[in-house]
């Protein structure tokens, strides 16, 4: 057959590692059956994963593109596809297609900047890709601050990597917080937006936010009240998607399609969209 390639037709991937991060988040390592990375991507881009007969869904690629061996996806159990994935074992095949969407502007806008990453819950998944990209090319960026919060200590994603790697990097400060006091937790307690205000960051930073919509809303307000301009703040959106390339119509907000015009947006660009995301 001489038909052109079609992005809707996926490749086969295989799960080579399953890491249990939290009671409802697992991180899956995926390669092609011949052991290679399925495709190259940029930090912040997404991929469609599917289990035939169960369904297909869009996930952010949590591993950094500097990892040339495999891709990782941190996935919270919250629907049909994710529940199925959570019971999958190493060796299970799935399908994968992508990469989709625009990445964070890591090589131009972010270059030379002090970076402030703010994440809530599984919202760390898309940011981990950028954080590890910036850590890999450490000399291209200024100071890095990472504020990360979760419901409890047990709900913090990538905890081992955060404590053993990120916290030990020169010029990288990690600020963890959990919603409520918990035995065995000596760190900060409180919601992310309040913690960000308490930390009272200098505005000479570029901020990247991801988390539940309510966290994004209040953190954004907080940053603006601290003197940040919306052009300094980036976030990544999530809406229901089917095709991933701006044709199925599902993630349309205003004249934008989150799958192809996003998912990464600068916060002043979001102001131009109707409030429907």
């Amino acid at each position, binding site marked *: *057959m*001489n*038909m*052109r*390639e*079609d*992005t*809707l*037709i*996926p*490749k*086969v991937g295989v799960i080579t590692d399953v890491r249990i991060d939290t009671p409802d988040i697992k991180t899956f390592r995926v390669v092609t059956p011949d052991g290679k990375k399925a495709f190259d991507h940029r930090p912040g881009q997404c991929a469609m994963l*599917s289990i*035939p*007969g*169960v*369904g*297909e869904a869009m996930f952010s690629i949590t591993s950094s593109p500097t990892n040339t061996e495999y891709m990782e996806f941190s996935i919270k159990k*919250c*629907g049909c596809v*994710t529940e199925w994935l959570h019971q999958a*074992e190493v*060796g*299970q*095949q*799935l*399908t994968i297609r992508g990469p989709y969407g625009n990445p964070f502007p890591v090589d131009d806008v972010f270059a030379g900047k002090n970076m402030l990453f703010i994440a809530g819950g599984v919202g760390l998944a898309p940011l981990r890709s950028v954080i590890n990209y910036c850590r890999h090319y450490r000399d291209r960026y200024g100071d890095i601050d990472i504020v990360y919060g979760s419901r409890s200590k047990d709900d913090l994603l990538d905890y081992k990597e955060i404590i053993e790697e990120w916290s030990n990097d020169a010029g990288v400060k990690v600020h963890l917080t959990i919603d409520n006091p918990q035995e065995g937790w000596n760190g900060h307690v409180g919601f992310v937006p309040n913690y960000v205000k308490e930390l009272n960051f200098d505005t000479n930073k570029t901020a990247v936010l991801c988390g*539940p919509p309510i966290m994004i809303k209040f953190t954004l307000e907080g940053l603006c009240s601290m003197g940040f301009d919306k052009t300094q703040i980036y976030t990544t959106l*999530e*809406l*229901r998607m*089917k*095709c991933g*390339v*701006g*044709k*199925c*119509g*599902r993630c*349309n*907000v*205003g*004249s934008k399609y989150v799958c192809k015009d996003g998912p990464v947006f600068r916060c002043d660009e979001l102001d131009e969209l*109707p409030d*429907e*995301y």
Partner: protein
Amino acid sequence: MRKLSLENINKLFAAVAEDKTLYLPVDQSDGSAKYSKWAEGTVWSNALNTVRSPKDLFFPQTEDLMEFKTEGKNIEVIDIRKESEDFVIFGVRACDVKSFEVLDRVFLSEPVDSYYASRREHAVIVSLACSRPSETCFCTTFGIDAINPEGDVSAWKTATDIYFKANTEKGEEFLASIEALTEESDDTAVNEQKAKTADIMKKLPLADLTTDSFGGGKTEELWNNPVWDEFSQTCLGCGTCTFVCPTCQCYDIKDFDTGNGVIRYRCWDSCMYSEFTRMAHGNNRLTQKERFRQRFMHKLVYYPENNGGLFSCVGCGRCLSKCPISMNIAKVMRKIGGDK
């Protein structure tokens, strides 16, 4: 211009159908017309238009995309695509011809949808000028000329004859293939009919409907218009408007377990449905007001913003005649544009 007596129209259909599949509007037992495959004995409908638009022929209501075989933990992806057969769509009205351009800009933009593209490449479109436009017609609002339809070949039907003019290379080939049946003619009869139709068009109830209040860049201005609250109150969310619409292109992708593998298919979906945007963490359009607004804002503001001012409505009037509560895009445009 080539001419054929309508007495011989079935000879033409037979000649075309010899090497290409031919689709044309055919009367159904319920009185409606439907694009159907021509076979010996099929009678071409006289209806102004079909209930379902010819978009079905490029973007079917359901189509299989691929198959999967699973065995234990292993998955095999099977590409089941086949190059489309050559086909002719005969008698397409100007509004519906324009709808193909609206769909093209979605499906043929990068990355190209190969399923749609294959059908589009293998199709010849023979349009048909309108001579009896109806009171639900408003193609002129969108700059469409019902008496000079586009397409690979344009056709005009008078009481006794049908006239053809080629517009594209595909159209030239089509006319060459039926050359023996047709004769050269001047355009006197066609022009007479065009003038009569133009007179009728001017008197249609929606002839004064304009797009002045719409177009790219109008999102902020129109977003909070009270029309969305008021007009969505009675909307049933049935999605009929989206299904009969020649330009609605939203789709869903689903899997079907056959017991011997899985078929992944796509089917039309509708922004009017509550499930359309529902996901694990919530729904960004919770009420019918938001869904109702999405449909009209997309056609009149978002789509033109992304497509050089082209509107995603062609004024075919199908939604006007089919909506169970008689709500429609013309009412929305009138209300927002100021009642006249």
